[in-house]
């Protein structure tokens, strides 16, 4: 059974002057278990809107959405979200932040703590567990947010430009790290990014969206070997997909 299936999903907002804003769709999309789906598209095309619908944070205006075969109406802990802005609570320590889902979901304390320590070690935050988030760098905060999203063992992870606020070097480092974690933990993922290379490096599939109202104009499989590394980007297949996506978004061939 697919993790997610959307049929004819649209979203219309009423802006503050009472005008209708067609933000999204219609979207038809099926996401299979264990696949990593990257989404790229021009700014303001409705990527975040789509993610919020999938997360169950906002209702769709029309269309049907199924999650594991049942109608998707509200958020669930089985779907983890990593927001663009890390959203760590400043009054909690890094460990307490990572344990927040366990606290809210009343998961067994000891097992959760063990898992939190494991995830923090995996992401190189072991020495910062008792620090407040304000003492962490941007990249470390985002890693802590990743640990928190993984704590309740979500079957499906949604990422909205998780590295968007970071500098290029940290971003590349973290995407490779995420890719490595992915091969290790193996989940279904839905990643929004404005970085085409990142999308290709991480994804099994790349969805390209049109200008607002956002529609899926291309769904390109990425048949690059895993694990992906720095060298993956030199693969001719990588470059070919990159050109193809660029052309779809910008409508022109780019020499680089």
């Amino acid at each position, binding site marked *: 059974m697919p993790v997610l299936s959307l049929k004819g999903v649209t979203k219309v907002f009423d802006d503050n002057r009472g005008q209708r804003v067609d933000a999204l769709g219609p979207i038809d999309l099926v996401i299979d278990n264990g696949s990593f789906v990257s989404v790229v598209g021009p700014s303001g095309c409705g990527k975040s809107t789509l993610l919020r619908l999938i997360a169950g944070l906002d209702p769709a205006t029309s269309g049907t959405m199924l999650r594991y075969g049942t109608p998707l109406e509200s*958020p669930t802990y089985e779907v983890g979200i990593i927001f663009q802005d890390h959203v760590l609570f400043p009054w909690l320590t890094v460990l307490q932040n990572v344990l927040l889902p366990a606290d*809210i979901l009343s998961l067994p304390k000891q097992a959760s703590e063990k898992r939190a320590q494991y995830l923090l070690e995996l992401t190189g935050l072991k020495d910062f567990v008792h620090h407040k988030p304000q003492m962490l760098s941007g990249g470390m905060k985002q890693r802590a947010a990743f640990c928190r999203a993984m704590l309740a063992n979500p079957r499906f992870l949604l990422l909205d430009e998780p590295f968007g606020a970071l500098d290029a070097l940290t971003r590349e480092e973290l995407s490779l790290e995420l890719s490595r974690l992915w091969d290790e933990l193996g989940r279904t993922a839905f990643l929004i990014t404005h970085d085409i290379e990142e999308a290709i490096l991480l994804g099994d599939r790349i969805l390209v969206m049109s200008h607002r109202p956002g529609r899926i104009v291309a769904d390109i499989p990425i048949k690059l070997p895993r694990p992906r590394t720095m060298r993956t980007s030199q693969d001719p297949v990588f470059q070919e997909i990159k050109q193809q996506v660029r052309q779809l978004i910008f409508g022109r061939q780019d020499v680089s």
Partner: protein
Amino acid sequence: MTFPAIANRVVTPLVYIAALVGWEVLVRTLKIPLWMLPAPTTIAAAAMQWAPELLSHSIVTTRETILGFLLALALSLPLACLIAFSAWGRKLLYPAILALQSVPKVALAPLVTLWFGFTEWPKIVIVVLVCFFPVLVNVVAGFESVPKSMLDLMRSLGASQRAILWRLRVPAALPAFFTGCKVAITFAVIGAVIGEFVAAQEGLGYLILMSTSQSQTPLAFAAIIALTIISILLFYALEFLERKAVTWTP
């Protein structure tokens, strides 16, 4: 310690001591009458002489201030929740509360005294009136300062309204709550004194009124200094609590 470091510590106290000495010298050389402006030494002597009375009146005023302040917290916190979390509570209550905030509460003191009689209650009620609004308005603002992304995170975990309140809204509103409290506690001392001005047989406000009417100006000054000390101590007590409770920068 180096010389600049010592100078740094010493200069401020020295300036204040010099000011006091200047005051003393001025009063003595110009022969300013006692009822108008007593010299610092005269005030100190009066404070010594009346120490037991100053203390007992200070206790009365402090008790009124703290009781009124706590009562104001007990009233304003539930109301702040109602305004922040219920659309109807907000629509019905908030305009009225914002309008009432503009009423000069001190002007109500004679009325409150009329209603509650010659007990401790009118003073406490006046303190409640002056403390209530700063706390309420700041706590509501604090609840509303919670970023939408944090609420989304809680919702994505399927958190109950209760969990969202205690895990997110309350800690997020804590800095604003303390801001409100610190504004309120300063007003609270003023409120208590006003209440005592209107009608009282005890308290520092009463002592100031009595001593000035009998031209006992040094005692009035001593009482005002006691009042200032109470105000400062209460403020720093709150600041101490704030530092214990708010250990992060937002």
